[in-house]
């Protein structure tokens, strides 16, 4: 038995050595570290990343060893943790919050052989820093459509985290598509100034329901708004993972962050020695943005409409930001049939026409 294991491992090692061209590396598994901003048990952002890590671990088995540090604050602590990971022999490090950018780039310059993957960042100051992000606005377009169809009061509530392009993009996408199917809707936005603050998020949900909103969307990570919606009988959408269990009656669907395909692809490239820094922004077509099963409360024709929208985004025949679209102040943004370019989206700091209220500054 022992001998067979030995043979098997050495055979695997030889196979890997052939692909890597470096025997020393092949004998030890590829070490992949993850730096998380929250706890894996948040059922939101970090949970989704950890699910992808586990999927990658299962996919590669003994060839890869993954490990993580959770609750890492952005700033000096993150820099120290990434450096210690590098010193411990990590070959690849995934950092999953945009605020890690300056630290990650500083560490990457000191460890040129380690592949750094930074989620939702924008800084690339070293050749070994790669950026990845998901087109969540595609998901927002779909839930906007469902919300526009499902609302009775024609008031949609939106719990936003920080006034940054990522979040503003999502608000615009949801609004445009709700408005498209229901011209009477209005959108109320509450800023939580936090990514994860259950008390604050719950208070925001209460306030929106008090204002007459009967359907809630959130760009924050806790399940608190869903619990409030369940109690108050408002409809809601989950964030980052399937949150049905926290609001079984009112959870319509959730935009799921599915990082697993990307993680598996990039780790494979690192194993093969073909990894190069990149800047990718994937979405529904790559299955990076997916949806929780639709709640039965959504009528069949609305489900069909949502699915048709998903398919049109998947095959590239439709872009959620297609003109004619004006800015909030009435100035022209996109002409008839014109599609927003990625640069504008990534720096988006304005509402589209029809949204009331200002973006806080």
């Amino acid at each position, binding site marked *: 038995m022992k001998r067979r294991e030995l043979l098997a491992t050495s055979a695997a090692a030889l196979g890997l050595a052939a692909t890597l061209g470096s025997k020393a590396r092949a004998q030890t598994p590829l070490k992949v570290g993850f730096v998380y901003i929250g*706890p894996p048990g948040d059922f939101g952002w970090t949970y989704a990343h950890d699910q992808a890590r586990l999927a990658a671990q299962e996919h590669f088995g003994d060839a890869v060893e993954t490990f993580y540090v959770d*609750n890492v*604050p952005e700033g000096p602590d993150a820099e120290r943790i990434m450096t*210690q990971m590098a*010193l411990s022999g990590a070959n690849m490090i995934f950092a999953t919050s945009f605020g890690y950018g300056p630290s990650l780039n500083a560490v990457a310059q000191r460890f040129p052989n380690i592949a750094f993957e930074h989620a939702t960042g924008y800084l690339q100051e070293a050749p070994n820093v790669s950026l990845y992000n998901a087109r969540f606005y595609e998901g927002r377009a779909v839930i906007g459509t469902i919300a526009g169809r499902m609302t009775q009061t024609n008031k949609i509530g939106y719990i936003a985290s920080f006034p940054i392009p990522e979040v503003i993009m999502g608000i615009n996408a949801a609004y445009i598509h709700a408005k498209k199917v229901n011209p009477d809707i209005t959108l109320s936005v509450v800023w939580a100034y936090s990514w994860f603050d259950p008390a604050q998020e719950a208070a925001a949900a209460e306030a929106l329901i008090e204002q007459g909103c009967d359907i809630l969307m959130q760009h924050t990570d806790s399940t608190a708004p869903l619990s409030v919606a369940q109690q108050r009988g408002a409809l809601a959408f989950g964030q980052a993972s399937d949150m049905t269990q926290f609001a079984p009656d009112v959870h319509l669907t959730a935009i799921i962050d599915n990082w697993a395909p990307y993680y598996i692809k990039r780790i494979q490239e690192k194993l093969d020695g073909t990894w190069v820094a990149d800047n990718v922004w994937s979405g529904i077509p790559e299955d990076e943005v997916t949806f929780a099963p639709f709640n039965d409360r959504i009528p069949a024709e609305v489900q069909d409409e949502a699915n048709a929208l998903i398919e049109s985004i998947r095959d590239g025949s439709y872009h959620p930001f297609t003109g004619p679209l004006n800015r909030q102040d009435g100035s022209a943004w996109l002409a008839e049939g014109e599609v927003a370019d990625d640069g504008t989206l990534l*720096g988006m700091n304005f509402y589209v026409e029809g949204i009331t209220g200002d973006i806080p500054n």
Partner: protein
Amino acid sequence: MLRLEKRPSPSKAWNYATPVVAVLLTMIAGGILFTILGKNPFEAIKLIFWDPLFSEQFAAYSRPQLLVKAGPLILIAVGLSIGFRAGIWNIGAEGQYIVGALCAAAVALAFYPAESVLVFPLMILAGALGGWAWAMIPAILRTKFNTNEILVSLLLVYVAEKLLAAAATGFMRNPQGAGFPGSRNINQYASAANHEIFAGTGLHWGGVAAFIAVLFTYVMLQRHILGFQVQLAGQAPRAARFAGVAPARLVLMCMGISGAFAGMAGMFELAGPARLISIDFNAGYGFTAIIVAFLGRLNPIGIVLAGLLLALTYIGGELAQFMLNLPAAAIQVFQGMLLFFLLALDVLSNYRVRLFLPQRATTENV
């Protein structure tokens, strides 16, 4: 049965022995915790206490990092300790730290990109003044309106956090930052950067400032009339009044010094390890420093040791987390145990434990 008898004066021997005993007890209790979590307890303890200092793989990096992590803790804690000795409770160092950093960032961003040797000293001054001014709010409210400085200084932390978020997403946002929150990278602006003074030592100007602050506080408490007044006000407030201590002046002094130190710590952290103003710039140093101050028994030298010990558990804790896949919460529990044992064992310095036989009690009961 055990009985505690108050000692006439605290035991010197136990004063020195309790930290060692506390660390040993933490190792045992922590070892049990790690075993329950399915990890090798000896490996975990070694990773936390030994490897950051002596392992070939990590020590060259983590030893200097001790200074980086302990520097701001010590600087803030010595400032707080002065007030704590006098019974003046500044709980809002975290807010003063933020405002100090914001003021320093404002100076740096106002000069950017001009290079000048004046920028760095001006930033230190701005940091100190910002922290001082933020601490003056609870101080003046207390001296003029007799409000409680614990509550006011604590609540001002949350105000400072909102200011920080507004700065990071609004008026201090990097115009070249693609719309992301966060200021320019001040660490990459040569005139403002707070780099290591000697490469590889981890000692940046914040560490030097902490060292000077410790010396200043030590001398002040031992040799200066203000030190005497502080001690007196803390131990015998009525006597202090008869001795001519003006309580209002003392409050302003103590709050001011601790605020200025915290503000400076924020400045050094901003221009050094933290690099820029971001939404999560404050990493809890201001609150952790309160623990450091008490762990060091409000003594400047003790605070240096406490700061280094806490820094070690942070850095070793991080190592243990990813080497053994331990959750962050397990390390926080471990740190909590250390503080618990250290403070709980204080009882041995002040009390004598007596063993006595329960016979008399039982006969009486019958």
